[in-house]
């Protein structure tokens, strides 16, 4: 109990600090702003109008997205669009009613701000105004972070920074609002105490995922936009949340992988290193000159501009196979060119082998239809067959068959 009380005390002092900070900042803001409004009411109206237009035009990460940590904002966009419309309507209504209520003076802006800042302002108005401010600030964070750190940070780092800032702001807002509205924080903590046990059991997986997520972010095994393979699924990383990681496969399927799995599983990262080697297995007939084949393969690798000259292509004579001499050609290429080199080289190899009469053998299947029938006559062309028939009359064949029976 003692520890909880100490914790509450710390929290309360933190809240008090945040609130004071907030008050100082907003008072300062009000002061500056009222001077500005005093001098040029028309300009300020224009300024506000412009600001609102600008802000409402942004495509937005959203409070909802931040709150539902793990849900990327595309998923939330439908809900969010509805909320946004509601929000705009609410904002207009609030604004109009405020303007209607305010005394009819030139400096109604200042009066309005004065009302908000004064001690006897209704708590819900203060909270609402702050909510609006927080909403704008949250909207500003994405473009601001993206612009400021466009070059110095990777998309991954920008995302983390953005989320960090958003969480701090929301936390500060929630705590200070509760304070203003006179809702004692103890209620939550009391309830939390009772629920801790239940939640602890229920949230085991989530917590495990959460901690795995932190490890994943710190370890930087995968980053946004990279091509990875996890548990047999290959795709581009679209988001790394605290609970799960999402990827988009080549078939354009969204795959969600719990972070716990990410931490335990073997991850192959195809994008991390700039170049990679492509191994092409080839079989040639036993009669072929292997030196000539090697020379031909190297020429092909040299002729393809996407195949790297250094590290040099590699030729490996893998062994004497069942029906072919097995060789391997390994060529290096830029990771991004993988597919075109993989296809291009194999097509070129087939074409060149065909041109030079080099045989690529493959196992043949002869169909045998059972012991009751005679085997298929395999491999005889019509002309040869007729010649054969002329040479050996039918009777002799049947007699041979009879003999064998």
């Amino acid at each position, binding site marked *: 109990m003692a520890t909880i009380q100490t914790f509450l005390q710390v929290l309360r002092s933190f809240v008090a600090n945040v609130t004071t900070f907030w008050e100082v900042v907003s008072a300062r803001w009000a002061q500056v702003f009222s001077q500005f409004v005093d001098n040029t009411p028309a300009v300020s109206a224009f300024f506000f109008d412009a600001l609102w237009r600008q802000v409402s035009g942004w495509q937005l990460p959203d409070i909802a997205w931040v709150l539902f940590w793990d849900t990327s904002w595309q998923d939330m966009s439908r809900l969010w669009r509805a909320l946004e419309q509601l929000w705009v309507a609410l904002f207009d209504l609030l604004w109009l009613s405020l303007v209607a209520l305010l005394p009819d003076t030139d400096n109604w802006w200042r009066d309005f701000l004065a009302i908000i800042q004064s001690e006897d302002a209704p708590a819900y108005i203060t909270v609402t105004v702050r909510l609006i401010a927080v909403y704008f600030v949250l909207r500003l964070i994405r473009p601001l972070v993206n612009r400021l750190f466009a070059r110095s940070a990777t998309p991954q780092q920008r995302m983390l920074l953005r989320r960090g800032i958003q969480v701090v702001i929301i936390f500060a807002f929630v705590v200070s609002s509760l304070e203003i509205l006179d809702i004692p924080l103890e209620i939550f903590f009391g309830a939390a105490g009772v629920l801790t046990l239940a939640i602890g059991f229920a949230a085991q997986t989530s917590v495990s995922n959460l901690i795995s997520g932190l490890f994943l972010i710190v370890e930087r095994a995968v980053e946004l936009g990279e091509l990875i393979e996890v548990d047999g699924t290959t795709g581009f990383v679209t988001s790394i949340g605290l609970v799960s990681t999402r990827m988009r496969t080549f078939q354009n399927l969204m795959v969600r992988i719990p972070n716990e799995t990410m931490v335990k599983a073997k991850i192959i990262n195809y994008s991390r290193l700039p*170049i990679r080697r492509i191994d092409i297995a080839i079989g040639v007939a036993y009669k072929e000159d292997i030196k000539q084949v090697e020379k031909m393969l190297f020429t092909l690798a040299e002729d*393809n*501009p996407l195949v*790297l*000259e250094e*590290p040099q292509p590699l030729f*490996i004579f893998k062994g004497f196979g069942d029906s072919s001499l097995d060789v391997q050609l390994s060529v290096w290429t830029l990771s991004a060119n993988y597919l075109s080199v993989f296809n291009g080289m194999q097509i070129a190899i087939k074409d060149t082998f065909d041109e030079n009469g080099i045989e690529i053998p493959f196992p043949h299947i002869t169909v045998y239809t059972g012991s009751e029938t005679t085997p298929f006559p395999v491999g005889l062309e019509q002309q040869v067959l007729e010649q054969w028939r002329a040479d050996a009359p039918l009777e002799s064949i049947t007699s041979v068959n009879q003999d064998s029976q």
Partner: protein
Amino acid sequence: MGLIDQNQPTIDDYDRSELEPEVDVEQVVLEPEPEPEVAPPPRWWGDFPLEEYQVGRWQVGSMTLSIYRLPREWRIIYSQGNDPLDPTLDIDVPAEVEAIGIDDNVRRYMFSQTQSPVTLTPVLADRPLVVRPAIPFAIETREEITLYVSLPMWLRISVAGVQQPLYEVPSFRPSDTWFGDSTLQGELCYAARAPAQLNISELPKRPYRAIAPILIRNRDEGSLVLDRIKIPVEYLALYNSKETNQFWTQKIILEQSNGRTKLRLGWGSPQEADKTERVSAPRERARRGLDIGAFGGIFRNTRGLD
């Protein structure tokens, strides 16, 4: 100055008397009927006026380029060959309209109104070029040598009324290569097929390739083994010698000291060239004493069998 003149072969050492027979020998190989008085190759670059519905065709080496002008469209059609030293040089402006071939790449650019002329500017590659000497050799400490390298050029296509160039086509697309200490770190470069030469007359002379003289100084203790050299072509300007139509770059000075390679560039065209004019600026401006790590980069530990 005097010292350098004594040690370094100058343009006079290579001049006509020695050079001419070799040029003839080379031409015998290339062309069945050599002409003793060789006229400089025609100028394939510069401004080319084109009327609407006219087409210009250039065959530069193994690359074929056609540019169509339509009232509202510029159309670029090109195809690339495999021979980096194809001696063909054929300019046909305006030419007959031909059907598009299978291997042709087509690019279209739309405008409200196209304007003549179309301009072809020779430029150097957009990535560094890695070149090897025919046989690797070592430079002893406190020694210096000059190597000559033949560089492939790109054709930058721009049209009147548009600031940005429309497109760049390589006269020959060199193979990619990797230059770095390992497969983990390094830089994507082009590989020059023609080896670096100690003697300028051994270089293939083509009107669509530029010659770059490279002076390499070894200020390190111990010898410097030259196996591969990375040439930072993005810092080089192009010069054209008026009489022979040969392209040149500035002299490149690579100085190795304390394990670092400092890059310095000569002023203007090199002394080996005759009267020249500057035809294109470098893609990037070089900082003084830039450390470019131009030597080495051999993969010793990636050759194993898996």
